């Protein structure tokens, strides 16, 4: 299988697995235990925490381990909302991951006003609207670092300048950027940040929420004194060790890997777009994750393309209504003003560590045939006409 769905999840790096293995049996005591075995596990957890802090340029005690991005987003939104205070407004963007959007919508039940700031055609949050919406009643602003579907990067520094002016907490879901590009929490003005291990070659089921000192938030799970009483439950030691290891690898390799993936990604787009007519790139042409390519193919539908790709042993994803359980087209593409039929024909290739040039060339060679076949079935495609009026 040529796997081009890395934004959905990544395979765990073998080096990470190797680092984790001792912590299932040999070093498997509870890190809260006093005995030596427990203290060994504690050390492993704390050393992973130190690696995360180093990568994100924050303090170790600002890192809270969680089960992943969704939990981190939930704690960030609900935790700050439940911590009390007078502020009753939560501002977010229209293209957030559902883990943030749905959680924000849920807080409406508890008397919070929720504002979703629109984005432009490239999926960049409208800073003018954000500026207007964020006021002294605003408790939290949650704007993602990079969007998972289109890869567009948000102007984090500009957003944090606005939140700082009004004393609002700034949370960013950085699940798609951590480990893929440098992040400097203090200089970016981030107050809270969500990350997830399995998006960058770590294991599934582990992530972290970074919370700068001085931010008030309530825990979601109550119980023991774990994670500074902010997240009760025995630590997922093997997972945390794996997360630490994957960060260690990322620190060393991300720069070179980013360049490599950008080249491969651009090769893919170049190859496809010269062979197939009437495509439209979704997302910002430059301000975009190096590994992400999202485009729409006119006249055909995404799921049928995915099935054809799958028959060719290629795994990708789509924002088509037909591929979503809810039968609604991607909220991200629609928020960018992509027409419904183009959202229907959208396709996302997201590249990663184990892709090679051969993989990319195979996709370039089979994709035009797939489009041709499906367009031949489509009632919307009129080759004689469209052939003459190419955009």
């Amino acid at each position, binding site marked *: 299988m040529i796997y081009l769905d890395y934004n959905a999840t990544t395979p765990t790096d073998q080096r990470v697995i190797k680092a984790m293995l001792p912590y299932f049996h040999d070093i498997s005591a509870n890190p809260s235990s006093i005995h030596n075995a427990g203290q060994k596990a504690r050390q492993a957890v704390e050393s992973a925490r130190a690696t995360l802090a180093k990568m994100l340029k924050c303090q170790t005690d600002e890192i809270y381990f969680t089960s992943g991005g969704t939990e981190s987003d939930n704690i960030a939104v609900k935790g700050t909302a439940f911590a009390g205070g007078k502020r009753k407004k939560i501002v977010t963007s229209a293209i957030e991951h559902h883990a943030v959007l749905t959680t924000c919508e849920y807080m409406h039940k508890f008397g919070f006003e929720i504002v979703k700031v629109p984005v432009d055609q490239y999926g960049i949050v409208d800073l003018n609207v954000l500026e207007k919406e964020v006021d002294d009643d605003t408790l939290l602003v949650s704007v993602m670092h990079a969007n998972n579907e289109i890869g567009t990067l948000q102007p984090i520094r500009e957003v944090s300048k606005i939140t700082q002016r009004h004393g609002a907490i700034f949370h960013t879901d950085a699940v798609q950027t951590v480990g893929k590009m440098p992040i400097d929490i203090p200089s970016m003005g981030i107050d809270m940040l969500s990350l997830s291990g399995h998006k960058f070659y770590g294991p599934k089921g582990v992530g972290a929420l970074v919370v700068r000192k001085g931010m008030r938030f309530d825990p979601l799970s109550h119980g023991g004194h774990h994670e500074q009483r902010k997240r009760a439950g025995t630590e997922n030691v093997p997972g945390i060790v794996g997360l630490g290891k994957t960060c260690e690898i990322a620190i060393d390799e991300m720069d070179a890997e980013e360049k490599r993936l950008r080249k491969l990604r651009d090769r893919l787009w170049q190859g496809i777009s010269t062979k197939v007519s009437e495509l439209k790139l979704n997302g910002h042409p430059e301000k975009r994750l190096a590994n992400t390519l999202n485009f729409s193919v006119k006249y055909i539908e995404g799921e049928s393309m995915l*099935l054809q790709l799958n028959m060719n042993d290629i795994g990708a994803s789509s924002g088509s209504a037909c*591929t979503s359980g809810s*039968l609604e087209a991607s909220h991200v593409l629609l928020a960018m003003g992509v027409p419904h039929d183009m959202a229907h024909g959208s396709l996302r290739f997201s590249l990663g560590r184990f892709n090679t040039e051969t993989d990319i060339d195979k996709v370039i060679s089979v994709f035009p045939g797939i489009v041709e076949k499906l367009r031949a*079935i489509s*009632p919307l495609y009129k080759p004689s006409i469209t052939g003459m009026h190419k955009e």
Partner: protein
Amino acid sequence: MQYSQKVMDHFMNPRNVGEMQDADGTGTCGNPVCGDLMTFYVRIEPRTDELEKARICEIRFKTFGCGAAIAVASMASEMAKGKTLSQVIDLSRNDVTDGLDGLPPVKMHCSNLGVQAIHEAIKDYLTKIGRQDLAEKIRGCPKEEH
């Protein structure tokens, strides 16, 4: 998506794809759920208004939609081909999904379009030969609900 072998077969090798010059009837239905589109073209022989005698001797379709929608159209076209109009009018979405060995629950709505669009083509034929009265009795595409 867990599709049956039959669905995958019809999706990969759809039967009766295409358009038809001078079709006796054409019908297009849209799917209000996710915005897909299906067009059917039929040729009728003999060209009579007797529903028991007139047969669909040739059928073509085009679909903008998911894998299930394409397979549904292909299966429906096979089921309708060679049948009398009264037989085709009796075809239901269940006949099509059964023929495909079922569809995943979330895809059941895609099965509507196939039979509906063929029925719409029959309505078009009957209207063209001056039998609106018969055409009106057949349910074609669902009416827009907004």
